[in-house]
């Protein structure tokens, strides 16, 4: 019942089918864990602090009026406003505090969570669900990649969402590896096999190339 994949490989290489731009984007985002969310929220808070700092400094130097600069930080006007409608301000404070707490905790949870290792879910027909574990798929691809000449070590893992998984492959190359050939064979053999075996028409891939530590050559004069 094993399908002989090697027969398909030896067929003449067809010109690569045009790739959906979404797939291309998924392969780019599979390169590494995205720092986007952390980055933009930090920029936001940094900008707020910067504006507050600049604003208060200007106020302090009297740019907004010398009289304003002389007022206390906790202005009696503020105290009067709050005292006029205590219930309203209490509710505002509680709601604001809750929102801030929820937002902060969500952000921490999101930031600290380790990157997902999605399983590959296949359609098995009625009443049958098939799930290929993330570890199994990754090891299969990595084992096959390690057989390529020029590749000393390989690791592969699935990243991304369960509905749209992507592969991240890291190859440790030997010093004399032919990079173009390794990449071509990775695409034509290893990845094509994976896609055929798992019946995934599109599996975006991010490949990272590293060099294997060389074995120290004996220095003989």
């Amino acid at each position, binding site marked *: 019942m094993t399908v002989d994949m090697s027969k398909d490989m030896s067929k003449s290489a067809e010109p*690569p089918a045009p*790739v959906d731009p979404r*797939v*291309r984007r998924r*392969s780019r985002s*599979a390169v590494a864990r995205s*720092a986007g969310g*952390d*980055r*933009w929220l*930090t*920029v936001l*808070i*940094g900008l707020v*602090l*910067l504006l*507050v*700092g*600049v*604003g*208060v*400094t200007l*106020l*302090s130097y009297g740019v907004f009026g010398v009289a*304003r*600069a*002389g*007022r*206390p*930080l*906790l202005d009696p006007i503020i105290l009067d406003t709050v005292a006029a409608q205590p219930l309203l301000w*209490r509710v505002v*404070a*509680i709601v*604001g*505090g*809750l929102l*801030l*707490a929820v*937002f*902060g905790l*969500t*952000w*921490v949870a999101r*930031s600290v969570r380790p990157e997902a290792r999605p399983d590959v879910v296949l359609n098995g027909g009625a009443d049958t669900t098939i799930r290929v574990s993330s570890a199994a798929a990754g090891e299969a691809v990595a084992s096959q990649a390690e057989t390529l000449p020029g590749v000393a070590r390989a690791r592969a893992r699935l990243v991304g969402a369960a509905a749209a998984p992507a592969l991240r492959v890291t190859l440790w190359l030997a*010093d004399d590896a*032919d*990079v*173009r050939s390794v*990449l071509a064979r990775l*695409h*034509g053999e290893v*990845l094509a096999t994976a896609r055929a075996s798992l019946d995934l028409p*599109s599996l*975006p891939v*991010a*490949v*990272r*190339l590293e*060099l294997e530590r060389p074995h120290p050559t004996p220095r003989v004069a």
Partner: protein
Amino acid sequence: MRAVLRVLAPLLGLVLATVGVLVVIEVVAEWVLPEHEGGLLVPWPEWGAVLAGLAWSQNLVRGIAIGVGVVGLLMVLVALTARRADLRLVAPSDDMTVTTSPRVLARLIGTRVRASDDVLSASVTASERRVAVTARAWNDAPEELRSTIVDRVQELLAELPLRRTPRVAVSVQEREGVR
């Protein structure tokens, strides 16, 4: 920088969450326990008195505001510069993205340059746009060593499917003494 961001971001989230929780607790405590003097967890009435006694134009306020502004600026800079310095390579297919690190390119170039007998040592810095090789040669090295090294490096760069071919800058220093 990415490492800093990865630590900073959750810390900020934690600070925000703590502030939010404290605000809720103090407001509720003040509402429900009017007899309780002062703040429950945080001495906010005392803080309020201090703030009421300070004016905007005072030096302390100025100093703190400038400090806050600087911190904010630093945060923005850290967040914006937290990028991976990846070298992009051309992939055999559009659904594949190939990257490597500048370190790897520098090592490959260094190995190639050091393979020449005339070169004593070489140090390489590489980036997407520029490769700089500083080689030390024996003092009886041929005159054209520099251009030989440039050729070797460009050969290597042509073998790699780089998206952008970096400019190559080679400088050779001679070393006194016998081989």
